[in-house]
């Protein structure tokens, strides 16, 4: 196979526990996003569009749906015979076996895989960020600066800087210090979790890191500081496009709404930078005679007979006559039945909302027993995937509806089906 100058390793093993019920059965990178995508489509499409043809996806937690979604990589043109996409779960060897302990350990456990590709550079990505980036530009900067590592950073508002991993740099853009969530930030350059490493250097540091019993085997907390301490040249590469970590219910909702309110920022219509996604094999969507669809995005297989305002409707979702959906996200295959009023809700995959249900921020009087301060904020209500919700219930904002456990009865969640993968 032609030698690959740079290969990508996508960290897709995290539990995504702050998304609550949405990552009950599926890994965070497989969570639906933006009407026709899954979160990991962005990282994968960035690779394809950047000409990167060898991509390792490191999985661990609930990988079934993710594996099945990614398949052989065909949808992203990554089903190469030589190189292409590889799913890399933890494994056993004569030396023993371990689950991935941290981001750096996950790469450490795949040193042999990377060595076999003989790359000069390794790109480390996270599978759960929404952005479009040409990694070739970053590689060019890395090579020109003769850096050992290059970290993509973005400017964040100063008042938010203390929530991020902050890079302090000199005038040439070299990183002089890395501070994880500093109380008094000296810079507002936050790490995006996108790293390019010269592979031989990283390899050394991974082996050293593994031997340190006190290390948490994390890039941000351990490997980057060790490289700084070791006098390596670390470059900050400023990225000023749209970028969002969709790690919480609020940021997931907000990032979906950005597609409606600030569509030019991520620009999904860019024909030169397509976001590839797995085809759902559905026909064009149908809008019925008495329907109204305003300020929304829709995709294949959707059927709208009711009213949809300022919402993101995913493939195969159905809104029946007389139902009203507003400021909401309908995930694939979800059904909103007649007479419902859905306001600022996220409806999980294949979930059926019974007739005349009212849910969300505008419900003043209703069931409060599903309110979840831990996951929900800003009035967003979340219905898990595969649920069947009873008719006529009213559910207040900030609620999260979980599946029934076996044998448990519930007057609101009538049934829950363990999801089939795609």
């Amino acid at each position, binding site marked *: 196979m032609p030698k690959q100058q740079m290969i990508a390793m996508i960290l897709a093993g995290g539990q995504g526990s702050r998304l609550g019920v949405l990552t009950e059965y599926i890994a965070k990178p497989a969570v639906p996003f933006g009407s026709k995508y899954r979160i990991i489509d962005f990282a994968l499409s960035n690779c394809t569009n950047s000409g990167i043809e060898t991509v390792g996806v490191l999985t661990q937690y609930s990988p079934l749906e993710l594996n099945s979604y990614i398949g052989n990589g065909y949808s992203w043109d990554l089903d190469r015979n030589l190189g292409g996409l590889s799913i890399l779960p933890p494994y056993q060897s004569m030396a023993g076996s371990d689950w991935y302990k941290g981001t750096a350990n996950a790469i450490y456990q795949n040193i042999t895989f990377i060595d076999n590709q003989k790359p000069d550079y390794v790109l480390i990505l996270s599978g759960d960020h929404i952005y479009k980036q040409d990694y070739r530009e970053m590689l060019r900067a890395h090579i020109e600066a003769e850096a050992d590592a290059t970290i993509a950073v973005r400017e964040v508002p100063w008042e938010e800087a203390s929530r991020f991993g902050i890079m302090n740099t000199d005038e040439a853009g070299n990183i002089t210090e890395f501070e994880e969530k500093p109380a008094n930030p000296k810079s507002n350059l936050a790490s995006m979790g996108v790293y390019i490493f010269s592979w031989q250097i990283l390899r050394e540091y991974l082996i050293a890191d593994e031997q340190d019993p006190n290390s948490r085997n994390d890039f941000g907390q351990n490997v980057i500081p060790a490289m700084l301490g070791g006098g390596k040249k670390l470059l900050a590469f400023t990225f000023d496009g749209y970028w969002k970590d969709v790690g919480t219910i609020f940021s997931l909702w907000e990032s979906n709404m950005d597609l409606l309110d600030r569509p030019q920022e991520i620009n*999904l219509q860019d024909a030169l930078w397509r976001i590839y996604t797995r085809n759902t094999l559905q026909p*064009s*969507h*149908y809008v019925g005679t008495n329907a109204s669809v305003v300020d929304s995005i829709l995709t*294949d297989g959707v059927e709208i007979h009711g009213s949809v305002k300022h919402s993101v409707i995913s493939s195969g979702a159905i809104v029946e006559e007389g139902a009203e959906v507003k400021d909401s996200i309908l995930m694939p295959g979800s059904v909103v039945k007649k007479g419902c009023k859905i306001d600022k809700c996220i409806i999980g995959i294949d979930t059926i909302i019974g007739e005349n249900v009212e849910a969300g921020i505008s419900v003043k009087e209703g069931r409060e027993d599903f309110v979840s301060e831990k996951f929900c904020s800003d009035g967003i209500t979340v219905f898990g995937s595969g649920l069947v919700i009873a008719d006529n219930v009213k559910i207040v904002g900030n609620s999260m509806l979980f599946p029934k456990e076996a044998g448990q009865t519930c007057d609101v969640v009538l049934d829950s089906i363990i999801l089939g993968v795609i």
Partner: protein
Amino acid sequence: MLTDAMGIIIADNSRIQLGELNVERALAATPFGGRYRIIDFMLSSMVNSGVKHVGILAETKYSSLMDHLGTGSHWDLDRLQQGLRIIPPYMQSEFFRSPSPQDINGLYDFLKHSVHMYVIVAESNIVSNISFTQFVKEHEKSGADVTAMYNHDSNSFGAPNISLTFEDNRLVDMMIDPLNPTSDCSSLGAVVLSRTLLMDLLTQAIARGDSLFNTEFILEKYRELTIRGYENNDMTLRINSLATYFSASMRLLEIDVLHKLFKSENRIYTKVKNESPARYFKDNHVSNSLISDGCDIIGTVENSLIFRGVNVGKHSKISNCIIMQDSVIMEGAELKNVIIDKDSVVRSGVRLQGSPDYPVVIRKGVIV
């Protein structure tokens, strides 16, 4: 699951002309239903019936057909063994050195190199989500030389109509566009026969210098061969003319028809384009329409099919129309009973109106 049949799809039919839509593309490659080409239906039906080896018999206009089919990967037919093969015209035969019609020679070679017992030969003017499994099973059981699929769907008759007359379920007469049909059985453009029999028929045709190959070529052998009928009751749309193309398209707006074609367990595959989701802006009005990914909808759309990547401008009004891929309908344009082919632009304020029987057709890449 069908495992011992291969397929042949005939991409063109000299009796069927859709006017401007077919000037540069084969009938099989005609866009249909928002995101499909007509051939997607037969090809998907075959794939869903377990057929893994399909030859597409193409005439000269095969550029857009090749572009649409690619490696066959969208139908999961990009295979090392078997898979999808386009049989182009003017291909020299490995087995015949005669100066005889080369389209048939290429088909003969394709069959000769295959291993399957049966061949399903299908025209590409039928829009349906068919299972061929039972069809082939019945053929095998009956011991007939050929089995022909038909239905009684008189609604969708239209020229050309191949009327089949059976006696004791054996074909005894075949009429093309009869004025007074003696039978209400209308061919569905699909027959099954053994590969060796088809090769024999082709050998004879080559020897005679015949060049036309289609399902009639086989059906008209009803005197020499035992041809039995197989009734199919699936929802079927026949495309025989521009008018039936238009009316078949409009029938997709019936939710029942839409579900029968697309929401069964068997899906219709097509080339994937990775367009972004469709965007609906404020002040649009959409009613009883199929809209595709990549569209920006600002104006009014009624009773219409809008293909991928179409821009429907402010205050424009589209009713009873088919607007194909990447066309732009600019501000204030008004269209009724119009078919706009790909990549065309209808400028601000332009008004076009056809009738349902004679829709106005604007050809590909034109600015009106």
